């Protein structure tokens, strides 16, 4: 009840805070932490320390014991030097990061933040609020810090600011700041393997003659060919290798072959998300075999092409496919995406 009453207030505060932060830490590729954007406040431990100092002062005064009084002054004074040390531990560190990172929805997305520290820095914790924490004991010179961000579903996300925290020195102070790289994370659907049989079953007979040979006896395996550099390890014929007959790769033919457009029509009648996952798998498979392919979605059509860039473009298109268009034939509760967060950028923007 109280929570509900307070929520407009907290929303308001959050909004004001966002405006305040945005002013001090505008989105940028490179952020240098300095006087303007570092926040510092004593921790609970810091307040306890102060309480002990005060207690010692009382003790010294009551016993008229100058040494204890002196020591309490020394500790109080040290509180200030420690605050400076904590502040200097963060001041002047440069963070930079590129804008866009990609990944699949089943795995955490790794976002690399480069750091440039002129002096050794200690006890750094970086985190997207609500996501996993990355702890770095020491930062030295130039290095890359990998952060992870677990996507709730496929899509394009703006994870927001990264919180940088350090309690270095004695844990008496928490020094923190926000890094706003305006990150955009493109989360591809999780690849879902589809067998050629399934694919064949829904293959439309009237499809143009781009169809490739279909495995006749149910087994997609066609032949062994000499291994070429760069081919997937999963395709190596290990049996032959073990027998010492040389390195071969198994060739599967049913989904390879001539260039074709991948589209929903070729897929079994499952939910859209399910279909997107199949498509992800197919795109990966095609790319792995360096085959040419195109993508034909209701919202976008990507011409036939090949290569890494093309693959990324296709996967991005899948990620950007509107979530709300769940006009699926079969409702598959297991596959419905988890409730997306407010900061998801939906559809094609």
């Amino acid at each position: 009840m109280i929570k509900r009453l307070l929520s407009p207030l907290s929303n308001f505060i959050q909004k004001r805070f966002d405006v305040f932060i945005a002013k001090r830490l505008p989105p940028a590729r490179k952020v240098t932490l300095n006087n303007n954007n570092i926040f510092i406040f004593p921790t609970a431990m810091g307040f306890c320390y102060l309480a002990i100092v005060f207690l010692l002062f009382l003790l010294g005064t009551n016993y008229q014991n100058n040494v204890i009084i002196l020591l309490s002054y020394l500790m109080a004074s040290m509180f200030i030097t420690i605050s400076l040390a904590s502040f200097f531990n963060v001041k002047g560190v440069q963070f930079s990061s590129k804008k866009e990172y990609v990944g699949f929805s089943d795995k955490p997305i790794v976002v690399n933040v480069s750091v440039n520290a002129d002096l050794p820095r200690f006890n750094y914790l970086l985190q997207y609020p609500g996501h996993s924490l990355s702890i770095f004991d020491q930062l030295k010179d130039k290095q890359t810090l990998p952060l992870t961000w677990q996507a709730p579903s496929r899509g394009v996300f703006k994870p927001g600011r990264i919180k940088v925290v350090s309690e270095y020195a004695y844990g008496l102070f928490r020094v923190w700041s926000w890094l706003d790289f305006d990150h955009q994370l493109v989360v591809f659907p999780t690849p879902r393997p589809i067998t050629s049989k399934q694919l064949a079953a829904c293959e439309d007979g009237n499809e143009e003659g781009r169809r490739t040979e279909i495995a006749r006896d149910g087994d997609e395996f066609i032949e062994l060919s000499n291994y070429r550099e760069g081919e997937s390890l999963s395709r190596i014929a290990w049996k032959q290798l073990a027998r010492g007959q040389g390195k071969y790769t198994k060739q599967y033919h049913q989904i390879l072959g001539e260039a074709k457009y991948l589209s929903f029509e070729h897929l079994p009648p499952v939910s859209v998300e399910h279909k997107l996952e199949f498509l992800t798998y197919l795109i990966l498979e095609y790319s792995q075999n360096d085959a040419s392919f195109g993508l034909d979605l209701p919202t976008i059509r990507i011409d036939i092409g090949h290569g890494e860039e093309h693959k990324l473009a296709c996967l991005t298109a899948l990620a950007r496919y509107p979530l709300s268009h769940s006009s699926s034939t079969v409702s598959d509760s297991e596959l419905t995406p988890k409730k997306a967060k407010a900061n998801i950028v939906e559809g094609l923007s």
Partner: protein
Amino acid sequence: MAGARANFQLSKADYSHLLLTQAFTILLFFNELTSWMLSLIALSILWQVAQLAKSRGTLALTINTSETNENTSQVSSYASNLSLLGRETARAGVVRKKRLPLISRLKPTPKLVVMLFALTGAGIIIANGRSLGLLLSMVHLICFAYGIKSLEIKSRKDFYQLILIGLFLQACALIFIQSLWFTMLVIAVAVLNLGLLYRYFSASAGWKLPITRSGKLLVYSVPLAAALFVFFPRLSPFWQVPLAEKAKTGLSDEVSPGDIANLARSDELAFRVEFFSNAPSKGQMYWRAMTLPYFDGQSWKRSPEGRTASYLNLPADISRAAGQSYQYQVMLEPSNQRWLYSLDTPFVDANEASSSLKISRQYDYSLINERPINATKSYQVTSFSGAVRGQNMPRSFKHFFTNIPENNNPRLTELGIELAQTYANKRDIINQTLIHFREQAYFYTLQPPRLNKNGRSLDQFYFDTRSGFCEHYASSFAFLMRAAGIPARVITGYLGGEYNQQGNYYSIYQYDAHAWTEVWLEDEGWIAIDPTAAVSPDRVSDSMSDALRQQRVNLAGSFSWQAFSSAAWMLKIRMQIEAIDYQWNRFILSYTMDKQDELLRQLLGDGRLWKAALIIALTFLSMIGLLWLRNQWLSREKVNTVWQKQFKRVLKLLNLQGFTREQWQSPHKLVEPLNNAKMGLGSQYEDLYKLYQQLSYQPMVDKQRDKLARKFQKSSQGFIKDLKQTR
């Protein structure tokens, strides 16, 4: 913070550091804790050490989350750092990269063991509670809690508590001892404690850096602390606090033969005196502590059994303050007794009235404080050597001071009566007795033969054994005088002192304890007579007193500091160290409210309160400013390593000699002109430049880099030398 509770772990090194800190902190209370408590805490620490040693089987966690990154940072070994970002973290996991350092997973202490320790400790405190008193019981309790807390560190909070209790305890140790050396020890232990906390937040830093960093931070904090100490108003106690009931040291309020001889075996410092102008000769420095007028047949006492002597509260009768006056400051070591020391006839300086000591002068001209001296204190006194005291003594007092028990030491009593009949002049009686001591075979010894305790001990000494220590002479002399009808009393105190040239003060040790007498004569009042001086007349002379002192020093223990430092150079060092300690006492320990008030008045004059506040604020700001500048400088300095600076120097030197290049040109451009101008230097420069480039761009291990950097420095130094020579 809830999420972190379960997996808090201290690394093995941190744990050892913690145990070390604990051990040192407890050792600071070595004199205060009962041996039971000490052994219990020692047992707890040893138990943990054993557990730590047993946990060899460390376990390595290797979690690789991301293959793509070449992250070189070490990941904190503390999962507990999790809690840092607050509650949301509890839901999210931690990403650990690379190989985690070995974590020694200590098994949690069995509940039974903890219970056993806790119950034993509680038992010890309860059993000793009565004899310990409130303060020491509290100290026991906190030390005990601190000692066994480390058995159960389950979360970061527990760890923090340990650190904070440790800091508090370390400061509390200063309640009992405040000497400079002990303070330094306490600060060292506090730095060790803070180092542990530092280490927790920079796990990769090893053990050296945390301690040096903590020490440095402490040093940076000194200016503000000093400003606060000098200028922040000292407050009076808010409430009464329990005092440590500690053993009394020094003189006691009764003297029977043998007491002072025991005291003479102690080489503890009793007090120190600084004279403001001239000082009397050492032989004249009779530091009075108290008078002992009651004789019970065995020993001389300050007050009768079980009662307080009310006559002492009468105003002192001083007819004339004449003779040489000495003004001096006495700095007392804590004795847990109330008496203060002064020469002859003391006048307490007026400004002492409001100091932390409440001094009153008693009827017998001795000074006494209201409460026992439990910390180093100082006071100022002016003494007059020739004052006439107690000239108008009432008849009742004359009777009181000639009172001797009946049937006690009959031979001495008889001798006294005989003397009184022989000599009409009382002066003659005194002189005759002193002549007797001098001319007969009386010996001065610290190990006198045993005397019977049958009320005839003084007889035995005076007529038979004839060898004794100062209290033998003083007791029998006073007794004899009383028997002869002369009012007399025994005085205890100290004689002489050791002059410290560096500090310009005298140190009086327990082995300087002395007993002498005062007799009352009709026209002169009370006069001091030292019968011991009659035995060894040389004792009044400085050289003899030193020789006697040497004898006592030797007795006080051949391994004592004093005996050890008899060599001249050692003596000098010892004097220097003691002088430093004295200054510490003078400026830090004796900086009371009044002293502060006086100093601020002299220094700042009117409006001293806001001026003091201003000074504190300025110190505060300048401290921050200086540290800020230092940080700026450091971050600029760190950009250039030594070899980089060295190369810059080479380029600058070359530039001075006319070998210039444009800003955009590589330093390699200089090789040709150098070759043309100076034979051989060109190639030397080229080699140097190659090394520089190697250092700058070639990836290598730290060790290798250091080696190369040394090589670079050597060759660049050679180059600079050659360059200067060929000029």
